[in-house]
């Protein structure tokens, strides 16, 4: 008989082994899923987990796709560490793209190297402002930030729909619900820094966020207060931390980063605002944050792994004709298994002794 026994202290080793275990379990059960769909499981798993790292085109895509995931997840992880649950990064992502995009569309054709930084700032501000709604309601009325931030995702989606059919609709788009293409506006184009690695400005900002978050959590007073609030709220109050400030700060930071990620997605891969603009990065980033153990370096690795499932997922969809939903199931499985094996951090499996 096997049973679980509580460890004296959480295992650090398991803390880092469990994400790997979760990936292995996902491969196993994902393989079964593909087999049930009548596809070759070995080929599918290889396309998702191996090819993105070996094929040079896919390699470039890893950072391009991983950048926004990492940027959003870094912001979310700060909140999650403090026990502030921003589930609405997708909404902040969309609002950032709309706000930053509107700036770019208003300046359309005006040259200047200041255009992109201005758009990025506007995107961050819009994401920040969108996240301030749940923050305000939480601090003032103790409204549940999980529900409010999640509901605001749907508001943002509808706002996007209104914008691409209204104020931001392309004047020469022959009535299609989409904005002008920012890809045709040189000053708003995202510069590619290292082409071979797929490192663009968005990727660089994401890497910068990783470093900044690491320093914040390891050395800064705000990072300390965030950790303290999450681990021991009463001790935090005793120390002098204002709980409302932590709620506003973590929601604000995650909103700003998500908004900036939205803008980078717009000026990078997407090119223009359409109703299909939201790809669910804001939700996937939640998985990335937890898969990376809410640790900046972990999030960097998890973001790249998750990007691989996107890149590989596209290959699988195309080559094996599996539905797009199967890939989302696959990603969901990853979080599910992570949560399931998480028990091993605090518990260990022992063989039950026979009753004496």
């Amino acid at each position, binding site marked *: 008989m096997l049973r679980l026994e509580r460890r004296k202290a959480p295992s650090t080793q398991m803390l880092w082994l469990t994400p790997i275990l979760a990936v292995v379990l996902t491969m196993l059960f994902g393989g079964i899923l593909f087999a049930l769909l009548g596809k070759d499981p070995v080929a599918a798993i290889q396309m998702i987990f191996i090819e993105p790292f070996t094929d040079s085109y896919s390699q470039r895509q890893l950072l391009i796709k991983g950048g926004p995931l990492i940027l959003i997840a870094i912001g979310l992880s700060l909140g999650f560490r403090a026990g502030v649950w921003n589930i609405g990064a997708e909404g902040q992502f969309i609002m950032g793209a709309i706000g930053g995009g509107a700036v770019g569309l208003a300046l359309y054709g005006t040259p200047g190297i200041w255009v992109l930084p201005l758009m990025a700032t506007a995107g961050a501000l819009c994401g920040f402002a969108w996240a301030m709604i749940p923050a305000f309601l939480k601090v003032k009325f103790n409204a549940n930030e999980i529900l409010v931030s999640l509901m605001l995702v749907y508001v943002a989606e509808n706002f996007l729909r209104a914008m691409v059919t209204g104020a931001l609709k392309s004047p020469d788009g022959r009535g299609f619900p989409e904005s002008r293409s920012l890809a045709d506006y040189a000053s708003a184009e995202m510069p590619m820094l290292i082409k071979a690695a797929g490192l663009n400005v968005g990727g660089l900002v994401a890497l910068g966020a990783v470093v900044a978050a690491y320093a914040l959590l390891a*050395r800064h*007073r705000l990072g300390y207060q965030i950790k303290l609030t999450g681990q*021991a709220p*009463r*001790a935090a109050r005793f*120390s002098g931390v204002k709980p409302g400030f932590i709620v506003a700060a973590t929601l604000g930071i995650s909103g700003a980063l998500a908004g900036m990620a939205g803008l980078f997605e717009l000026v990078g891969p997407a090119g223009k605002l359409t109703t299909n603009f939201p790809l669910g990065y804001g939700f996937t980033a939640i998985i990335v944050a937890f898969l990376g153990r809410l640790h900046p370096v972990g999030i960097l690795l998890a973001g790249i792994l998750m990007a691989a499932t996107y890149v590989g997922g596209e290959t699988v969809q195309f080559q094996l004709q599996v539905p797009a939903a199967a890939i989302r199931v696959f990603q969901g499985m990853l979080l599910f298994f992570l949560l399931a094996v998480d028990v091993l951090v605090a518990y260990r499996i022992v063989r039950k002794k026979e009753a004496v």
Partner: protein
Amino acid sequence: MEPLLRIRGLSKAYPGVQANDSVSFDIGSGEIHALLGENGAGKSTLVKMIYGLVRPDTGTMELLGAPYAPPKPGEARRSGVAMVFQHFSLFEALNVAENIALGMEDAPDRRALASKIREVSKAYGLPLDPDRLIGDLSVGERQRVEIIRCLLQNPKLLIMDEPTSVLTPQEVGILFTTLRKLKSEGVSILYISHKLEEIKALCDHATILRLGKVVATCTPANETARSMAEMMIGAELAMPSARDYQPGEVALELSHLSLPSLDPFGTNLRDVSLSLRKGEVMGVGGVAGNGQDEFLLALSGERAVPAEMIKLKGAAIGNVPPEKRRAMGLLTAPEERLGHAAAPDMSLVDNAVLTGQTRRNLAKNGWLNMRKAASFADEIIARFDVRTPGNHVPARALSGGNLQKYVIGREVLQSPDVLVVNQPTWGVDAAAAAAIRQALRDLAAAGAAVLVVSQDLDELMEMSDTFAVLAEGRLSKPQPAEGLSIEEIGLMMGGTHGMEAPNASA
């Protein structure tokens, strides 16, 4: 004569610690047997084995000559062993009879149970109304509920874990009368306590545990408290040295401090006034739950009150937040170590930052100087003899006494002008308690004003220059501690609270 319970060679090991190491002793029929030991000596594990909560690794027990190895508490209760825990498991929103019924295997109907409760409570001098809500009862009355729950099972052996830690002196007197009556009826009592004077007064025999082993047995009546303490800690007891009390100017002044409790069963703080001088140790006695929590929250700054209610060295600070109060010289140490005074999963270094940021200059422009924090942590560890493998271990890995030394040390070493501590030695072993008391007195001798809130009267009598009692949210007028008798204090503490007979009208 055949003993009631014979314990032979009981051992129990947990990962990394031998909690009990072949413990053997006997409990006779109709005797009150004391189990003495410091925190971590293995008392709880031993008692849990007797009550069937933990199974021993090796060793045997015999109850009235028959093998006794209860696999679970229900089995122990059926064999006639009952236990009153230190922490009660009662539902505050239910009444006395409902709570007792919940703990019974086959509860009789409500009416019969209520009359049975009245009967037993009357017979043993423990007045209790079965219809009252637990939330309305004092701690002493709640304990009666637990005792009566046990007595309804007609136990042969009653285990009591630190029963007097929450009682006023009068309530202790009532409890002792009850226990002696039970003894005269042939019930044996296994009595666990730190309080040596009580054991001298009450118990027939004592078994003393240290580090999981039986180190001595004695007849308490023939010993002194000091000799028993020395058997318990295995070393001479360091008593704080006497100190001249030379009060200086007023450091902390409270005027009409009032604060409603946020807890529905808490006590509102009402109109508390005092002035505390430099060099003075003021003891605030009283049973927990009489406004102590609210008192501490108001002083630490976790809850704001109108500015004028609290004055520090003349400055009105009632609405000043915690970190700024520290900067001004007012430091506090809350009662609950894990989760309030310290973050359980954070390292001792991180916990040094918790209150030390400002006064110890651990932060510059928002960036923490972790090297400085580590050396502050090491200083606390060295100066307060905190037993730990290093400053990197999480707070929860320390034993209660060691963590308490760390938490008190953290505040003392910041040289406060005013230090407020709540229950500084709660659940701490005798050696650590003596060290903490000495540190607080040294601090006052160096010119700081110290306010000690505690339930332990012996401690307050030993430490305080002036003494007051917090009862039902009001503070009695502080007066010199010298010359106060325990009876006077007892009356200050609760008056006749909870001692009148219940209205037997139902």
